[in-house]
């Protein structure tokens, strides 16, 4: 049975089984798909999420690469840069929402453009949350875990 507070559209498909099993704890966050074109931010974020946060991270340098590896990796959550060459973050989110397997996948934007109207726009597009750049590498994993918990509160 679904918890009244559950934000079902944001949950990955396996979450329903988890809740049906009667375990109301937040399901563990294990796998992050990180989409970012900057090679140095790729390094620092992967380090922060893997070494500090103990998460499994697949880094993709473009939206196209991320889409091609999505099924194989099976992420719990996507961290998505907004401004990228080729397919930008909003376009990738729009594409994800059309894919049956990824329609409900939580997507978190990472961007320096975090004025209130910009954040409101990202949420209208379907972003679960927005992480401001610059982020603190030492607390990035905690921030992501906190977002994950809030999605299951």
């Amino acid at each position, binding site marked *: 049975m679904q918890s009244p507070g559950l934000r079902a559209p944001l949950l990955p498909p396996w979450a329903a089984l988890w809740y049906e099993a009667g375990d109301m704890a937040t399901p563990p966050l294990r796998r992050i798909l990180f989409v970012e*074109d*900057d090679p*140095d*931010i790729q*390094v*620092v974020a992967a380090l922060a999420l893997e070494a500090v946060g103990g998460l499994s991270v697949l880094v993709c340098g473009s939206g196209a690469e991320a889409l091609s590896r999505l099924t194989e990796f099976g992420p719990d959550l996507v961290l998505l840069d907004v*401004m990228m*060459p080729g397919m930008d973050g909003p376009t990738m989110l729009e594409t994800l929402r059309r894919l049956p397997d990824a329609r409900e996948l939580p997507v978190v934007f990472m961007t*320096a453009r975090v004025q209130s109207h910009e954040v409101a726009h990202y949420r209208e597009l379907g972003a679960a949350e927005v992480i401001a*750049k*610059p*982020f603190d*590498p*030492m607390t990035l994993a905690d921030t992501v875990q906190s977002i994950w918990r809030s999605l299951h509160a």
Partner: protein
Amino acid sequence: MERDAGAEELRRYFAGRLPLRLDELEDACREARAAGWRGTPLRTFHRLAHSLAGAGAIFGFPEVSDLARRLERHLKPVLENGAPADEAEVATLLADLRQAVGV
């Protein structure tokens, strides 16, 4: 203490990367100028300035980040509205970036 050591390690990593990133930015500037400050070369130049601004802030290089952000903002109306690029301003910002990086 561990946190400080981690931050310092990240700073060293990025300090080693900065000369290469500046070379990349200057190459992109040359290509944008050669293309008449239009099209893909200009978009690439703007994106690299944007990326350097973001990365500089994350890795603890506020001066680099600030100069790159100023460059990004200068290029934005050129990119979006076809406004004329102030080549002297672009050159000054790139020179200031070189000085900030110390190469």
